[in-house]
């Protein structure tokens, strides 16, 4: 399709404007993180480029430690979710047992309960287990994931059941079939779910706030919040530097994930 040049120009101008509007806060954060405190306070344009804010973010606070915590917790949650959701989805698709569909709908129904509603019972549970200030308390409550099970079930359902039957005739058990056929075939969905799980955990705020009391296990999101209220006068430059560091993994994952996803989508094409 050929678009007249005039319309093309207008369309692109509008797109650039919209992109600029949406991206402005992020852009401001990035710019501010490189500005001196003085420039920020006076509201002037940046007069000098400095990495001072970044240096101070790491010096004044255990930012690196927070980052490692966040990373560990997100990875553990992601792996836990992938393992549990894929196993549950396998059972819902390939194993036949009484009440399977009922159980599945019950599973789905839990998606309607908001996380905030279950936060108090969850807190009681991990407190009674003595998991406060522990990685287990921060990760285990998120392993079971109705959405992930649902997503993977829909994906596994696309796998022709003849594949299972052929492997049955070849003498392959459920575990081996799950590992050698289902997981590789559903790779795309697993990656999608993994990225989703990782980012959700990375950006989690409320739960880590409740389940931690000391800096040892705190995640970076809580750390950011601490930056803000430490002093009377907020050191915006440092806060912005912290925020920029925090969004880097998200961006990396999105870029990498997108590439992988596109490849995965085309690879799965089979008549």
């Amino acid at each position, binding site marked *: 399709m050929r678009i007249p040049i005039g319309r093309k120009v207008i369309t692109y101008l509008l797109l650039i404007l919209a992109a600029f509007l949406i991206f402005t806060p992020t852009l401001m954060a990035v710019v501010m993180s490189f500005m001196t405190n003085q420039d920020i306070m006076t509201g002037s344009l940046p007069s000098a480029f400095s990495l001072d804010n970044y240096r101070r973010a790491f010096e004044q606070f255990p930012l690196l430690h927070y980052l490692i915590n966040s990373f560990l917790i997100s990875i553990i949650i992601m792996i836990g979710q992938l393992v549990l959701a894929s196993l549950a989805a396998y059972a819902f698709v390939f194993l036949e047992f009484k009440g399977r569909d009922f159980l599945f709908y019950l599973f789905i129904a839990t998606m309607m309960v908001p996380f905030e509603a279950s936060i108090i019972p969850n807190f009681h549970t991990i407190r009674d287990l003595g998991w406060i200030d522990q990685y287990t308390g921060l990760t285990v409550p998120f392993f079971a994931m109705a959405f992930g099970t649902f997503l993977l079930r829909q994906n596994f359902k696309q796998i022709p059941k*003849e594949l299972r*039957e052929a492997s049955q005739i*070849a003498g*392959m058990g459920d575990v081996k079939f799950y590992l050698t*056929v289902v997981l590789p075939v559903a790779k795309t969905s697993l990656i999608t779910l993994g990225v989703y799980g990782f980012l959700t955990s990375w950006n989690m705020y409320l739960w880590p706030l409740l389940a931690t009391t000391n800096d040892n296990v705190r995640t970076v999101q809580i750390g950011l919040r601490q930056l803000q209220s430490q002093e009377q006068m907020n050191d915006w430059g440092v806060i912005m530097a912290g925020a920029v560091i925090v969004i880097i993994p998200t961006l990396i994952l999105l870029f990498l994930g997108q590439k992988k996803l596109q490849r995965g989508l085309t690879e799965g094409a089979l008549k």
Partner: protein
Amino acid sequence: MSYIELKDITKSYHAGNNILEEIDLTIEKGEFFVLVGPSGSGKSTLLRMIAGLEEVTGGILKMDEKIVNHLQPKDRNLSMVFQNYALYPHLSVEQNILFGLKAKKISKTEQQKRLKETAEMMGLSDLLGRKPRQLSGGQRQRVALARSVVSEAPLCLMDEPLSNLDAKLRAQMRVEIRRLQKQLGLTLIYVTHDQVEAMTMGDRIMVLNDGKIQQVGKPITLYNEPANLFVASFIGSPKMNIGRAEIKEAPGLLVNNTLAFSADARLQEALEVHKDIVVGIRPEHIQPATHYEATHSLEVVNVEQLGNETSLALDVGGELWTAKWPGQWEIETGHLLEVYISQEHLSFFDAQTEKLIRPASFSGHGEVQAI
């Protein structure tokens, strides 16, 4: 020696609603056995029961003299080819072929030996590194067959393996499968809804409808002496012409209130016990009145020129009958056409029970030519 034996096999998913009923059957070693029937007749279910993928509700299933009702599919020593080929999309052709052998923990050298032999036999040697999506339909079909061959199981089950191929390729694969089966001495149970496949490939055919066996026998027997109206109209292409018959005093027999036939005393007697009678006649037995004197004249509704033969649609008392004449004929539609129909080509069926009363007496001698 009977290799597979089914005794009074039934299958139902809900109590009282049988999908398969009273299936009694024996299949010999090395036989090419075809299960044929319209969709929903239960033929695939029966095959899957033999494979062990579906539970047997009632009856006994024996293989090699042993009862296998509750045996796992892997312990039945068989291979299966599926309609959609069931190739693993993420594995290469080589890995697909060796998939079953790896699961059975067969030694690497043996695996490679069998792979080489099979790939050569199936003409897949150059494609071993490819993924299924890079193959054409016929090549995928070959991979599925190779997977079955490489397992060296004595029994092979095929569930409509050719229905995803185009007509040309299907004809070619028919021959290839047949040759492969003879070459390897396989016992093959083949499910299809295509009666041409059944006729051309099977040593024996079983026709299934609504979960009941209609008839088991050699293809030619089914064609010449169909046990009932269903088999008569299912086997053969174009299908057998069916017409309602009345017994009249003077001429003998009147079909569809149009065609009169003389009936001798023996036939009269045989038909007397049945109230309603249906007659069937194969399209090739409505013949041109060139060598014989015309017995009837019928209106031509449509003419199809196929080159080697001519297919005519004729109006017989309001119903369309098909006639198949060898060669090329110039016939105009709408005209009355002189034809020769012999009474001895008629098959007689009871309209109520739909069972065969008397097969066409011509068949059996003179039709099949042995060399």
